[in-house]
């Protein structure tokens, strides 16, 4: 039971990261390998801000702003010149950006893990839940994850920009003909994706209270797997995939087969894809952003 | 070899609840030039996809030269003798013209040679390659593409791409050739040339040909028989001239065109 809750809260972190992957993929049609490293920057932003002020709110705002700016900058510098080139070329620059961010983070912050200040972890107790063994962090992560997902869905369906994003993801050529500024939409997508990364970094710090330069790599790749399991391009899919992977990972770790957690996690991916080649929710492509 | 080349029996397919084609019965005799016409969305290409194994029929059967090919894979159906072209040209764009045709020759038993023979450059490889190249040149010569043989397929002008697709399909040595809107996007002059090519293929290769076409001039000009499809079902069938003057057919078309 507790394992399940732990899995859910880990899963919602994966889900949040996967949302970022899926958004960018759906609209810019590229695998943003640097996404995990934007999370890392977000986490550092929170840790550093908290070492100067005791207000988590300020830290979160700082992280969101920094990540958004960073995301847009990456898009402008590294990806935009390659619009129209082979997607694989873009993939390689994304990897380059990922190395770059890791390298810079190590130069600036050093490679020692930086623990986040205690303020961050002193969350208010929620009486009933905590008695059941559900930590506040897990509850907050889960609830916020769902809220963000719903908000994102509403944004895409109900705002002009959101619908333009949908149009770009459906057919970029037609969107251009409809007078949509594709470049602007892609920039907005990166901004939102990076802001999501900042949130992911925040929840990450709830559960794993350390920031280090390579923090983004493994959650990033797992979240990407989650996005694919859910059907890449699909927002609910990313959510489902992320939570599924989180739960499976935790269940495996709790079982005697814990040594093979990674193998089981990835085998699950293979099995799911063999049964449903476009992921769990990938079929409803009209829903995609 | 019997007189009937292709026979479909109540062929049909449904996707979910939608019946894209149903109860299609077509009989094509040897060396016949047969037209399949109908308004947009009538299910013509679906029939082609069924006949070539892209989709598996949910009902009915079809026979090539008396042999039941229902449920076979695309590759197997091709080897049994059905070759096709595509509505939107599907050439191997990054390969040269001659390579495109040589891919068509790939499966013929006379050019057999194992991958290991090729990797080790055994004599079998050289023999097969030479024979294939010669045969491909012959075919290109017939279709007037010999000069372009080292051009990349995507760099060919549109009309030649259509021709190349037919040449490539012919390379697989089929009994039945399916042409999906061969004249789409062609000007009257090119269409004229295409009609000549199709006739030429039929006469010189003793080929049975089934074609989808919207250009009634072409259909009337070369097809001996036609089947009209509407909403996935047969509307009319028979000699071209008779069918084309059938009022139901005219309504179907004009009603649709508005």
């Amino acid at each position, binding site marked *: 039971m507790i394992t399940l809750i732990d899995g859910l809260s880990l899963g919602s972190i994966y889900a949040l990261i996967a949302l970022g992957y899926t958004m960018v993929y759906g609209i810019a049609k590229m695998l943003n390998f640097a996404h995990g490293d934007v999370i890392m920057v977000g986490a550092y932003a929170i840790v550093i801000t908290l070492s100067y002020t005791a207000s988590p709110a300020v830290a979160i705002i700082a992280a969101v702003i920094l990540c958004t700016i960073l995301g847009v900058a990456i898009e402008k510098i*590294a990806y935009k*010149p390659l*619009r129209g*080139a082979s997607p694989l070329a873009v993939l390689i620059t994304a990897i380059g950006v990922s190395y770059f961010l890791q390298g810079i983070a190590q*130069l600036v912050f050093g490679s020692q893990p930086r623990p986040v200040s205690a303020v961050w972890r002193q969350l208010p107790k929620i009486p009933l839940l905590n008695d059941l063994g559900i930590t506040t962090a897990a509850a907050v992560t889960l609830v916020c994850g769902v809220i963000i997902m719903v908000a994102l869905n509403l944004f895409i369906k109900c705002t002009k920009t959101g619908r333009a994003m949908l149009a770009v993801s459906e057919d970029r050529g037609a969107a251009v003909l409809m007078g949509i500024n594709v470049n602007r939409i892609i920039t907005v997508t990166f901004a939102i994706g990076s802001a999501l990364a900042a949130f992911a970094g925040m929840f990450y710090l709830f559960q794993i209270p350390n920031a280090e330069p390579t923090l983004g790599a493994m959650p990033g790749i797992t979240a990407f797997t989650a996005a694919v399991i859910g059907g890449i391009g699909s927002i609910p899919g990313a959510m489902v995939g992320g939570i599924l992977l989180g739960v499976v990972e935790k269940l495996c770790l709790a079982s005697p087969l814990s040594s093979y957690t990674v193998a089981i996690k990835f085998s699950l991916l293979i099995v799911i894809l063999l049964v449903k080649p476009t992921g769990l929710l990938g079929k409803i492509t*009209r829903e995609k952003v | 070899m019997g007189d009937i080349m292709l026979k479909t029996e109540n062929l049909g397919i449904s996707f979910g609840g*939608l019946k894209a084609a149903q109860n299609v019965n077509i009989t094509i005799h040897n060396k016949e030039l047969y037209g399949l016409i109908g308004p947009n969305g009538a299910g013509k290409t679906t029939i082609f996809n069924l006949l070539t194994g892209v989709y598996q029929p949910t009902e009915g059967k079809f026979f090539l030269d008396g042999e039941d090919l229902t449920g076979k894979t695309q590759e197997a159906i091709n080897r049994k003798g059905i070759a096709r072209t595509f509505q939107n040209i599907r*050439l*191997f764009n990054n390969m040269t013209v001659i390579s495109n045709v040589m891919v068509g020759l790939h499966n013929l038993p006379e050019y057999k040679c194992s991958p290991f023979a090729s990797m080790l450059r055994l004599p079998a490889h050289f023999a097969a390659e030479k024979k294939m190249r010669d045969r491909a040149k012959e075919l290109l010569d017939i279709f007037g593409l010999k000069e372009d043989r*080292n051009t990349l397929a995507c760099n060919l002008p549109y009309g030649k791409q259509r021709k190349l697709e037919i040449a490539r399909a012919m390379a697989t040595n089929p009994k039945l050739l399916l042409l999906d809107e061969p004249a789409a996007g062609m000007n009257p002059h090119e269409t004229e040339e295409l009609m000549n090519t199709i006739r030429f293929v039929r006469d010189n290769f003793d080929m049975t040909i089934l074609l989808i076409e919207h250009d009634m001039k072409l259909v009337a000009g070369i097809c001996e028989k036609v089947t009209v499809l509407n909403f996935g079902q047969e509307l009319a069938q028979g000699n071209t001239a008779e069918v084309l003057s059938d009022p139901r057919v005219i309504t179907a078309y004009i009603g649709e065109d508005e």
Partner: protein
Amino acid sequence: MKNFKLKHFINYAIVSALLIFGVVMFLTGNLRPSTAQLFAQMGYGIILAVSLNLVVGFLGELSLGHAGFMCVGAYIGGLFAVVLKQSGLDMKLPVLIISMLVGGLFAALFGFIIGLPSLRLKGDYLAIVTLAFGEIVRNIFMNQKVFGGAKGLTTGTLIYDTRKSPTLFIVVFIVAILMLILVQNLVKSKHGRAITAIRDNEIAAKAMGINVTFYKLFVFVVAAFFAGCAGVIYAHTTTPVLYSFFSYNYSIEILVMVVLGGMGSITGSIISAVFITAMNFVLQSQLSGDLASLKNVVYAVILIIVVVFGNAPALKSFRERYNISAFFERFRKQDASKRRDDEAKWARVPSKIKMDALLSTDMAPDSDESIHGDIGADNDKGGNK
């Protein structure tokens, strides 16, 4: 025909030149052990890049698990070689060759297994499955006591001592040349044409009767075999063989070699494998101590600059003016029109990796129109027109 052959020989010439250069240095006593090791690393880098290119560039499927095959080869071939040595066969070359075959064959078996999903999955979905495969393989080997568990497989007895007899690179380059011969012969044959046909247009290839199942599996098996061989070579240069080396990061490094060199260009793969290996070497030797953390930054900047310059649509005219392949063109007596075709071929990217292909289509068509649309959209994969 003549120019085809010249193109073949450029590849052999590059590798042979490296080999001869190394041998001459060795015979004149100028070969530093570190250079000998660098040569060996370049050698298996070439093998890895060219074999991955077979999958990515020629078959058109994105694979992110190439290091997984190398892992299988390194562990199984390495263990086999160690056992051979223990059982008394104390001759380096035969042990290397036999274990390379064993490791290669096992890797090929895994290639067959990972080739199976490729029959059902496409594009990114297959890519992530190959990535998953690499991680699974690593995880399994890590947990096997036979292979040393977390401590890794100790292959100390196999190591070619680069100081006393730095000769492993010679064998490696010879293996690389043999592989090039096999791969190029395959590519320039009816089978190679079938493979490229599948890449260019799978539906049309099926309609031409090409046995897509066979060729997809075949390519995966061949590529895995060579990657396995590279793994065995790795086990002969490094002790211990440690699972952590074969992570997806390494698969991606191999992919970087292929993409930098140009997909579908064997010459490009060779050159970029040499370039990247050398770059890593130089960065490691120059940026030591406090400067080491600059390494990733420098590597990343070089990578981004090279890719942006090589691929940005805005810089096309610049590239055409200063083109390496144009330099080689001069040796090939061709008329201008053919040359343009050839450049088109280089610039072109295998169609299937267009990532939007899957997004733009619905897998289950729900009307006759969308059946047309389905096939039509598939065709758009080749839409670099």
